[in-house]
């Protein structure tokens, strides 16, 4: 989603007309969007399902004298638009006064001017999409004789446009598309079945790395055949980039303004202090067009900007939208995130790590003995970003004498977010942009409790 190029004037006109109806003394913001998407799932060489649809949505925020009301709906029909504005006004009646409440005001920061609109995805025919999904399944099955089936092989694409306008003078429009694939092969050996998963996403079909997806998915399934439960121990773990992104994403979530001002972050009082080893530098950079999270503006229409969160281990900045910034007596960092269905929150657009210089093999060699974590589960149930407790299910491989060895499963790894940032021993050089837009590398973290037998 991007670019202030107004290719389709309808949504901005609709947004402007809603704003024009604001009452005197009322701050009003409207977000309108529409999109379409297609998902093809293949199974057994055939189309299992082909799903397509269109969506519309409107979200209206009204602020009067420090009170805020919000309403949303899944239609842009004129009667629904009018009802939604009325509902937002009614909801406002019951909110209580918060002097910091209000809309974002233009802050003069120029947008990065990224050209992210690529219409290649619109040129695909339905048959092209079907062939992609079927071909993905076929190639997974052909890659390794132990792959006996594929639970799901899917192609998805979508195109969306959105306009945001407010009485504070915000008026932005964005549009864009993306496509993605995902596959879950099943590897069987005797009575044992292991399932793998890999996927990729891009703005253009030819940017998808299908071969890498197949390799990761197939090796993910076959590599775990014969995995056993490890003995409980204190170990050094190596997180592959997707796992590292989940870990650092939780840390970065605790650096967002709403969590900080409401006392729900273990890092709330730590600005300008060392919270990690000096090898860690973490930024949120939506101005980097390589990230799928890149954008020209944030969810309140302010310019997207590069924010350094942790620089050489020192906590540099919390992320803010306009509300949390007013509360913290800071400036918005352009970090509002939202859809039509909610008021703006605070979040990361494109978290990116500054990589180290050890490629994967060198990183494993430097670790010597430990475990390589290919995947984790239970992030939502075992990680508490308020207390910092970190405990997740993990599977992957042992590392012995600096090389990947036998697989393990049915284990957990545990520590605290605060400790792990100081137990980080290596940041890998194997930097990549993940399908979600995060730029990440492998991480080696010492002194983790591995729980098994």
């Amino acid at each position, binding site marked *: 989603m991007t670019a202030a190029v107004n290719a389709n004037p309808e949504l901005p006109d609709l947004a402007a007309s809603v704003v024009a109806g604001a009452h005197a003394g009322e701050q009003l913001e409207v977000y309108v969007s529409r999109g379409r998407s297609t998902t093809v799932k293949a*199974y057994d060489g055939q189309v299992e399902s082909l799903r397509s649809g269109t969506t519309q949505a409107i979200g209206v925020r009204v602020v009067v004298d420090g009170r805020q009301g919000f309403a949303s709906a899944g239609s842009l029909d004129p009667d629904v638009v009018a009802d939604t504005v009325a509902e937002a006004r009614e909801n406002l009646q019951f909110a209580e006064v918060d002097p910091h409440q209000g809309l974002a005001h233009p802050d003069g920061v120029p947008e990065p001017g990224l050209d992210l609109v690529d219409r290649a995805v619109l040129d695909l025919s339905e048959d092209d999409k079907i062939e992609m999904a079927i071909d993905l399944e076929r190639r997974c099955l052909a890659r390794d004789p132990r792959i006996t089936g594929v639970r799901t092989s899917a192609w998805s694409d979508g195109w969306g446009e959105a306009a945001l306008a407010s009485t504070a003078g915000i008026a932005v429009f964005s549009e864009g598309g993306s496509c993605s694939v995902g596959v879950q092969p099943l590897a069987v050996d005797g009575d044992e079945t292991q399932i793998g998963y890999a996927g990729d996403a891009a703005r253009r079909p030819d940017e998808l790395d299908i071969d890498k997806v197949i390799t990761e998915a197939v090796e993910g399934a076959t590599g775990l055949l014969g995995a056993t439960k490890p003995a409980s121990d204190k170990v050094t773990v190596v997180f592959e980039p997707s796992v590292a992104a989940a870990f650092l994403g939780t840390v970065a979530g605790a650096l967002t303004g709403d969590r900080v001002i409401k006392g729900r972050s273990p890092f709330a009082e730590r600005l300008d202090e060392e919270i990690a080893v000096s090898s860690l530098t973490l930024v949120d950079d939506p101005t980097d067009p390589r990230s799928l999270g890149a954008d020209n503006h944030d969810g309140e229409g302010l310019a997207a900007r590069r924010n350094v969160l942790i620089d050489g281990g020192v906590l540099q900045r919390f992320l803010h939208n306009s509300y949390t910034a007013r509360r913290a007596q800071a400036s918005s960092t352009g970090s509002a995130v939202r859809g039509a269905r909610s008021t703006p929150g605070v979040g990361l657009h494109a978290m990116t790590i500054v990589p180290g210089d050890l490629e994967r093999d060198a990183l494993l060699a430097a670790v010597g003995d430990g475990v390589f974590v290919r995947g984790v589960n239970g992030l939502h149930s075992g990680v508490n970003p308020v207390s910092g407790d970190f405990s997740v299910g993990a599977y992957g491989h042992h590392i012995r004498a600096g090389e990947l060895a036998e697989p393990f499963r049915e284990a957990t790894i545990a520590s605290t977010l605060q400790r792990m940032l100081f137990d980080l021993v290596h940041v890998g050089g194997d930097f990549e942009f993940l399908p979600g837009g995060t730029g990440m590398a492998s991480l080696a973290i010492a002194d983790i409790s591995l729980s098994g037998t």
Partner: protein
Amino acid sequence: MPNGDGDAALVERGLVQAALDEALSAGGEWAEVFAEDRQNAGALFDEGRVEEMSSSRDRGVGLRVTVGDTTGFAHTSDLTEEGLRTAARTAAAGARGTGTRTGQPLSGDGVAAPRVETLPSSVPKATKVDLLRRADGAARAVDDAISQVTVRYSEGRRRILVANTDGVFAGDDQVRTLFSVNCVAAGDQGLQTGRETVGYTVGFELFDSHDVEELAARAAGRAVTKLRARPAPSGELPVVIKRGGGGVLFHEACGHGLEADLVRKGASVFKDRVGELVASPLVTLVDDGTMGVEWGAVAIDDEGHPTQRNVLIEDGVLTDYMWDHLRSRDAGRAPSGNGRRQSYMHLPMVRMTNTFVTNGDTDPDDIVADTSHGVYIAQLGGGQVNTATGDFVFGMTEAYLIEDGQITEPLREGNLIGNGPDVLANIDAIGNDFDMGSPGTCGKDGQGVPVGDGQPTLRVTALTIGGTAS
């Protein structure tokens, strides 16, 4: 046009018939119309004041057409005749059919009344705000260590209409009300959290039988207790799970693995095991969508089939899987009322409703007293399972050590990990104190649906605790 009131079908019968006819004339072998009108409203109380009141309205229709093993699906928020016909043609084209069938005539009136005493939308917003304020005050009164309190109220009404070329024309009117309290306590060792949620498939009468102040005090107490929690152990230990606190264990350990779509694709450790002993003979597991006011209760599933009580495991023996339209059709059997979907924009698939283990005959106190060293879990958080291997994790949000048959020190949060078939076999005691647990949202392939779970106090002889203490 959509009908906004409860006394007629959501979409007029003639319009539905036209869409189904269009789907079949465009080549479909079987077609379905799923219409939905959803109204949600909520209030958020944070930092001692009403932070936000919000509401939303969604309505739309999903057209599903099948030809052989291929499904075409199209969704739209355009509920006009032209909108429905276009969606029908799109779905039929997706299914790539060439047939010329005619469907069964629609039977039924497609109407359902909400099964509640008081529609939440009829209650003044000020009354709801008062509940939030009372809960906030009660939580803060528990202890000076309580530093933050967030209280949420939400109400949802979901009206659906399902019609298909088998002649189904059925509606449901689902009303749910939920109230939750999240507390943060600050102590010398940092911050801890406590949460309590109550939610049922009921209207505003929820608050006749549930005291929000008690709920808030429990949430606050949980956070305060955890301030003195010690790190959880690392490794395998016996685990006792308090009644109503851990139904999610069965949801993850075997519930997902008993969904016929996963079984059919070989992605379940329970495939080809009907009739076999898959659990301790103490275990009887049921999925029951008809359970009164429970969170996962619905009159019909999202394919128009009445929900029912399905015994999945009886005295340790696997008796049946859960089924939706497609899987039961392929297997030549009746569906089980487990075809559900998040919204009109989604394809249905096999989903649980309320999943629970029935009572055993042991006194729960004896289960604890009979455990020399282990972990007592009073409240579990969410979980996640790999159905292919049966490995599953679940979080413990309130747990204690058991030492010499006594519940002692509180433990910090963490995940536990186990393997479904192993854990089911290793249940060696089940109490006689059955209770349902907190309302949950089950996620599968990106779709969330409301589910309930429950269980009596029970013990698993060994689970791996994902703590840090040796």
